[in-house]
């Protein structure tokens, strides 16, 4: 990549005034560095991933609203986690977490267990318990 070709597309890193360092060549093919504000293919790939998460979160929200799942699933998706990561943060077994997705089981959870989830999601126990979708 030539230095003149270092992409300066609009991207989501611009919002925080961040630019990436790239290695690029000068007119003799020798390497130097240049800053890039973003590159469209990258931005699209990233927004693809973000959209995917938004869709999952929205699906989970509706399920909570319909009483098909517990708020834990919603906050898990919202925090871009999967069951494995959530297990890491809460210190609970994965099968227990999956069980806690059931609204009936969720309703009977103790404050102690809910606190573990709340800490993982950086919210309060009340926010977790009272989320209605």
């Amino acid at each position: 990549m030539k230095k003149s070709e270092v992409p300066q597309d609009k991207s989501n890193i611009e919002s925080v005034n961040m630019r990436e360092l790239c290695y690029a060549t000068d007119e003799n093919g020798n390497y130097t560095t240049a800053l890039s504000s973003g590159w469209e293919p990258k931005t699209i790939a990233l927004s693809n991933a973000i959209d995917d998460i938004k869709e999952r979160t929205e699906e989970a929200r509706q399920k909570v609203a319909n009483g098909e799942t517990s708020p834990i699933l919603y906050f898990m998706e919202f925090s871009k986690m999967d069951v494995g990561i959530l297990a890491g943060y809460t210190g609970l077994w994965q099968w227990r977490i999956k069980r806690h997705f059931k609204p009936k089981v969720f309703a009977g959870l103790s404050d102690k267990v809910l606190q573990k989830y709340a800490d993982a999601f950086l919210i309060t126990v009340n926010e977790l318990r009272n989320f209605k979708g």
Partner: protein
Amino acid sequence: MKTDFTHHQSAHCENGVASNLLKHNGLNISEPMVFGIGSGLFFVYLPFIKVNHAPAFSYRPLPGIIFSRLAKRLGIKIKRQKFSGSQAAEKALEDNLKKNIPSGLQVGVYNLTYFPDDYRFHFNAHNLVVYGKEENNYLISDPVMETVTTLTAEELDRVRFAKGAFAPKGQIYYPVYIPEEIDFKKAITKAIKATCRDMLAPMPIIGVAGMRYVSKQIRKWPAKHGVRKANHYLAQIVRMQEEIGTGGGGFRFIYAAFLQEASVIMESEALKTLSFEMTEIGDMWRDFALEASRVYKKRSAQQDVYNLLADRLLEIAGREEEFFKKLRKAV
């Protein structure tokens, strides 16, 4: 408490931390040299591991390996420590700062508050340097950022003890010994040979063979998983490839820069010529990313597009195979 540390921005976090820490300790070594001597160029496809609900691709070796290999080849000693609890982890860091030792940390990206929201995923192989503390704020030199920044003690604790794959467990690392005389020629030869060995490994998921395998899989994705999922997977390839200076094109350019620097030290014209070739391969990776992004942007349903992309990847694999065979002979 503040150490006299100088922040230099880099393309990739691990190279950057290694280069910045070594510079601080009196060894002037550039990011491409760290990357090259640490054999940072790699490719592996892990279909059985899912990241963000898509198979994992990695264009780099496991976190920490670049710096470890670099240290081994240059005779540098690094101290690494992991912790089971926050208190011990914070104490070790504070002790270092008191002794004027800027320290490298492995951290999770998700809670890095200075990152744009969209970039905050549960990715735990990020690296940064803590070079001081003012009141409750740690002074942070994150090599992918243009300037230095800060994190509160709570925020830093959260990123040091991020959970999930490659959980950092508060890992702290810093060089403790740098030899007076370093034989760069020997280190470069060794490093180049290792990279060639990795990329030409006779294993179906690693290096050039791995790319060929992925190419074969791309052809099957639309029929096997449907267009939506196939596009999601493609986007994953591009993200792993190009995000924040890592991966495909970006890494090839850093490696080409390394070959240029190495050609001077090794007094080898061949390495310089090969560096130009690597630049061309890097451009091919960028074209591939561009092509792939067009597919998942339009969400087009033609089967041909995937075949076209697979062909492109196959072409790149061919070029790289040829390249690494030549490189192996050049040292």
